[in-house]
């Protein structure tokens, strides 16, 4: 039958070895003694004997087939690699499809990346912050160092050797990572794409025990990045709507005066009964709206006064009250004049219905040297942007939260890199 796996005998121990990518694999390890055999040699010369006593576990079983990103791939080889200091190790699985060729599935810190060698050569730009340009996009440098093979199992399209060391450069543009591997006689470029764990499970088996994910991978897309763009758009759109709507609404607010009168404080201050002023009834009409209380005492000087104001609907007896003080101090000190406080104040009361109203004013405060004139004015339906401000605040709360999360994700992503834009170099 055409295109079947082939069985060979290990030239070291005689154990049977299954070759899956027949005629394409050049080296294979013996499943029993783990010697590496030369498949291009009719006598299956031994390329290397197994020296390492350590046992390596890997999460995906060789020979397993799975459908990943639309194509069926067979796991045919496994490579454990490490940085030259052997501090950090990661797994690489060789995938094979007779028509589509080879791909790699890398697993580092529990994060998966699907990698394919590219013939389109990226251009590395050294000036400034190094980056690589590939198919019109810039990839930021993330890592520069060496990687060596510490363990292999399965079959490979080149004569794999434990100890083989290459110079590695990784450039990121999440979810992609662009990598170069440089050996003495060639530079191989590859492009990888971040793969979620659930995609690996769906492809190669839901019961697999995959390594726990830790940290943020160099090419791990920020979970909120895509939402962030959408959210920003919504927030900007809604804000614009709010501004336009409230401008239109407030533009129609006329601020009609419904009451204005000047009073004098401190004339009969010895007679407490006279301190309370009740105005004759006046009308507020035009529909329920806000009412602004404007208070002004132009002659207030180095003193204060306080007012309790009650607006009472004479028909229903319902009222709204507020208390407001005015204080104003000024002087000259060291040649500079200073002042603090204000001679005027405004306060807004919302949702006052139509009706006949009286205003009760109870002023208090130190007796002024001269009777103090003050103005009380009421205007209805005045422009008020405080709702807009609250709306905007609420609107932007969530996007800001997302932005902070995104920023933290980026800080974590770059925490393992020597080229972090978030670290002082």
């Amino acid at each position, binding site marked *: *039958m*055409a*295109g*079947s*796996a*082939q069985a060979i005998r290990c030239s070291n121990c005689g154990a049977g070895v299954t070759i*899956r*990518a*027949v*005629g*394409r694999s*050049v080296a294979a390890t013996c499943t029993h003694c783990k010697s590496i055999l030369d498949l*291009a040699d009719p006598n299956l010369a031994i390329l290397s004997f197994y020296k390492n006593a350590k046992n390596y576990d890997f999460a995906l079983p060789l020979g397993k*087939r799975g459908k990943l990103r639309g194509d*069926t791939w067979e796991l045919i080889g496994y490579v454990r690699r490490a940085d030259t200091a052997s501090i950090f190790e990661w797994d690489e699985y060789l995938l*094979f*499809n*007779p*028509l*589509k*060729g*080879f791909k790699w599935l890398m697993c580092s810190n529990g994060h998966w990346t699907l990698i394919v*060698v*590219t*013939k*389109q*050569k990226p251009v590395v730009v050294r000036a400034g912050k190094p980056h690589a340009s590939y*198919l*019109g996009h810039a990839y930021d440098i993330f890592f520069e160092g060496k990687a060596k093979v510490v363990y292999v199992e399965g079959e490979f*399209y*080149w*004569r794999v050797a434990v100890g083989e060391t290459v110079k590695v450069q990784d450039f990121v543009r999440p979810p992609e990572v662009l990598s170069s591997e440089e050996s003495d*006689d*060639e*530079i191989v470029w590859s492009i990888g794409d971040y793969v979620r764990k659930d995609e690996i499970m769906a492809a190669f088996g839901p019961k697999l025990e995959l390594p726990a994910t830790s940290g943020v991978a160099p090419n791990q897309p920020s979970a909120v990045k895509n939402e962030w763009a959408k959210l920003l758009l919504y927030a900007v759109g809604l804000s614009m709507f709010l501004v336009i709507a409230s401008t239109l609404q407030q533009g129609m607010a006329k601020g009609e005066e419904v009451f204005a009168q000047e009073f004098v404080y401190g004339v009969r201050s010895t007679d407490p009964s006279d301190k309370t002023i009740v105005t004759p009834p006046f009308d507020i009409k035009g529909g329920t709206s806000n009412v602004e209380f404007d208070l002004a005492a132009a002659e207030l000087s180095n003193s204060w006064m306080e007012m309790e104001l009650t607006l009472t609907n004479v028909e229903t007896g319902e009222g709204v009250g507020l208390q407001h003080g005015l204080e104003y101090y000024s002087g000259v000190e060291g040649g500079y004049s200073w002042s603090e406080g204000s001679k005027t104040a405004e306060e807004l009361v919302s949702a006052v219905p139509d009706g006949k109203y009286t205003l009760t004013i109870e002023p208090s405060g130190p007796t002024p040297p001269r009777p103090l004139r003050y103005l009380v004015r009421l205007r209805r339906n005045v422009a008020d942007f405080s709702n807009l401000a609250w709306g905007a605040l609420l609107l932007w709360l969530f996007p800001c939260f997302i932005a902070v999360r995104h920023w933290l994700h980026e800080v974590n992503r770059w925490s393992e890199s020597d080229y972090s834009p978030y670290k002082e170099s």
Partner: protein
Amino acid sequence: MTAKLNCPSCGAQVPFQSQASVSATCPYCRSVLVRTDMKLEEIGKVAKLMDDMTALQIGTQGRYKGRSFILLGRARWQWSAGFWNEWHLSYGGGASGWLAEAQGFMGVAHFEATKAVPAREKLKVGDHLVLPGGKYQVEDMKEASCVGTEGELPAIIKPGTKKRTVDLTANLAGGVAGFASIDYEDDGPHVYVGTYEDVESLTLSNLRQLDGW
């Protein structure tokens, strides 16, 4: 038009579908035959081509840059680091090219009538070279030996035929990876220029059925 000639070794009919084909491997007795006028001449024997996990076969059809092609034959090459296949790609009417299948990549290339390339000894990996269609970079240099043939080929190739090649790549417009190959032969360099292609873009049909795939 398909010419039908008889194998001088076993008498079986050996089809020649392309006018560009100059040699063929008899599918029955595996003699390598060279076409001279209307006769076939045996120049060697091929052992049964070692099976390999390729999805391509003689008769596989596809399209390259809008032109339909069919694969009519192949030569399998071995070099120090492995194997690759070169398929004879025929557009019909004597127009042909090669589809190289190596390490999971497919590159289509056509002969260019130029000899204006440096001597192989003057080249090394990473060198730049201007070839028809763009600026190419030397990717690897191989010394290869033919380990098997099947079907009809536009060149005289038999097991044991040696060749010294230089493979090149280029960043062409539109994100396309250019593919070129120079075969240095006794009569000088033969230049082939083309592109690397995704399997999808070649819209291949009549692929080989592989066990379990």
